């Protein structure tokens, strides 16, 4: 004989009323446990993340404030004059007029005669004398003078704008030919990161700029 167990609503109700005192606290404990695992623990973990984020934000804010104070303290006119000197020394493009001026001023001040003003401009395209990865224009200069005046010319050229570098000197009696490169540097693309601004010029760099200001 098959006994059929009927688990209907009245049975549930009877079971509930009979075990009510167990069921309710057990359900509360279970719900609390679920709440604790599902909500309170993740919220607690989130608190730690918030604390970490606070620390990071605090550091960033301090850094930003330091940068803001630093930028505010930089003297605009002083910075402009330094940038002007630096740009004259290292022009952003091929400064032919500046080069001719530097050579002719050097020649006049040292008393050498430029050989019929016959200096040979080397390759002027992008390929031109990329010496040590620094873009430059190579010029072969011929001057007529004695050795002392040539030395003086070299000295004057070393302290002329745009910056130049003599890579070789050939003296034959009174005719000296020298290979000179004049440097330039295009302005790089500027990406300002407010959190990592360039620092102020170092004492060495400031000294160099001050020294160069007397070259002009």
């Amino acid at each position, binding site marked *: 004989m098959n006994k059929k167990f009927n688990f209907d609503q009245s049975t549930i109700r009877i079971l509930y009323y009979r075990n009510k*005192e*167990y069921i309710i*606290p*057990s359900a*509360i*404990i279970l719900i*609390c*446990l679920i*709440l*604790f695992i599902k909500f*309170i623990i993740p*919220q607690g973990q989130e*608190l730690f993340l*918030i*604390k970490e984020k*606070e620390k990071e934000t605090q550091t*960033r*804010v301090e850094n*930003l*404030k330091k940068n*803001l104070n630093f*930028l505010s303290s*930089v003297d605009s006119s002083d*910075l*402009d004059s*330094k*940038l002007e000197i*630096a*740009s004259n020394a*290292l022009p952003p493009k091929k400064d032919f007029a500046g080069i001719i001026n530097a050579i002719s001023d050097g020649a006049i001040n040292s008393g050498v005669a430029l050989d019929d003003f016959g200096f040979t401009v080397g390759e002027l395209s992008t390929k031109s004398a990329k010496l040590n990865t*620094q873009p430059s224009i190579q010029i072969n200069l011929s001057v007529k003078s004695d*050795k002392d005046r*040539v*030395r003086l010319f*070299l*000295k004057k050229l*070393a302290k002329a704008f745009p*910056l130049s*570098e003599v*890579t*070789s*000197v*050939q*003296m*034959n009696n009174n005719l000296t030919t020298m290979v000179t490169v004049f*440097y330039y*540097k295009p*302005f*790089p693309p*500027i990406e*300002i990161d*407010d959190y990592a*601004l*360039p*620092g102020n*010029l170092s004492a060495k*760099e400031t000294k*160099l*700029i001050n020294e*160069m200001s007397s070259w002009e």
Partner: protein
Amino acid sequence: MSEGINLLLDKNKNAHKNKEIIKALRITSVISLFLVAFFSILVFLLKLQSPLTNLQNEEQDTLSKISVLHPKAARLFLASDRIKNISEIISRRPDFEKRIAIILKAIPNDVSLSTFNIDNKNVSIVATSSSLSSIGQMLDNLVAMVGSKELFNKINLQGLTVDGANGSYRISIEAILL
């Protein structure tokens, strides 16, 4: 009286045990409720106390103040970049004027230079003089520079010829710079 056949006593014992379980369950549920409420309030208060929002506002505020100074920052960046390059070029470029001065100082007055070539690595000199001792003096001076590591690393005498017709000596030297 045997306890094994006392059904009433057993029933009381079970009821007592059930009551204890119910009591424990109730206490546990109340504690659970309390703990959940306590931690919920604690987390809420701690979150409420967090200065993160204020910090984020302060960050945005400072960023907007800095953005006004961006042109100045750009000029500073350009100046700094350019000066670094200039410094690099100046420190790297050889001082030919000084080198030539040192070499010329080593050459006696009665020795004339017919060819003098110098670059970053080498120096080649062709000199003539009617005095052999002056030529010797020049050689001594140049060799001394190798010894004192003043300018040269090595000196090679390429040749020494005598021009009988003019009565002059011609010396050819190659030197490797330091």
